């Protein structure tokens, strides 16, 4: 389980941005790709622990799941994968490894109290 170290990375990034912009953060919004290798539930649990004794204590982590999108060489279009166990185009079943989205692990916004 590496979610605690990931959670600490999220807290560090958020604290750094909050300090630089002088914000009081009530929630951290994260984009989490289905291929990031991170388990959401374990991350949510770890986040609380990672926030303790920091300016983010008591804040929430809001996770936006990002599905895997591949480019299908046959359809010549981006397609959302149905399952990470099967890297084929959902329309025409052509296998593809051209991943366009789904590896994200990104703090993309901070929710602030004014």
């Amino acid at each position: 389980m590496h979610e605690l170290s990931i959670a600490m990375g999220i807290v560090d990034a958020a604290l750094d941005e909050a300090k630089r912009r002088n914000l009081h953060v009530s929630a951290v919004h994260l984009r989490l790709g289905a291929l990031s290798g991170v388990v959401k539930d374990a991350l949510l649990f770890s986040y609380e622990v990672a926030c303790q004794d920091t300016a983010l204590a008591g804040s929430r982590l809001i996770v936006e799941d990002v599905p895997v999108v591949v480019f299908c060489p046959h359809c010549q279009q981006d397609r959302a994968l149905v399952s990470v166990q099967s890297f084929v185009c959902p329309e025409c079943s052509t296998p593809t490894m051209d991943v366009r989205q789904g590896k994200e692990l990104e703090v993309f916004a901070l929710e602030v109290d004014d």
Partner: protein
Amino acid sequence: MSEPRLVEVRRNVLKQNDVIARALRDRFRSAGVFVVSLVSSPGSGKTMFLEKTLSMLQPRYRVAALVGDLATENDALRLARSNAPVRQITTGTVCHLEAAMVEKALQDWNLNELDFLFIENVGNLVCPSSYDLGENLRLVLMSVTEGEDKPLKYPTIFNSADVAVVTKNELSEAVEFNWEAAHQSIQSVRPGMKTFRLSAKTGQGMQEYLEFLGQQLTEQQTVAQK
């Protein structure tokens, strides 16, 4: 009540790791060393496989290895029998290697004196998938005793790898291993992945895999010279 205000920041959580990994990759390229990382579950035979790889490559190439483990230096001691330079990275409670650990372990190494560097990750099919180590090739190892559907159970790590090796082939009959099913699960999570079937113990199938590594090294050196 007013709507909460959102401030966009866009910060990649693994940026620090990625920056170090990129620097490592540049260092490997300029030194002309081809770097292979190994991932697998605990007990799949990674150390035996690596031991054979090191000793079989050695007559022709200059090889070295870094091995990651939570505790003990047993693997480094075993691998040292091949007479290749080996260094253990003991991670403590950390379940995977990160680029910074590799950077630290390589600090005083002269990479120009090497053709191949192998990095054995901690035995774990989940956590290592998130961390780029700057390697040129990520090799995922599974043994026939683990079952044909291992790739379907751990799609992320198989998807992040470049090559699969199915080892302990000498046991495939005893465990009724279905090669076709294994091949299908690998191709399902990672279409087009090159796969080798071999036995590190008997040496069967090792030659083809070692020739492949030799080709990869030549390609990298050709690109570096351009």
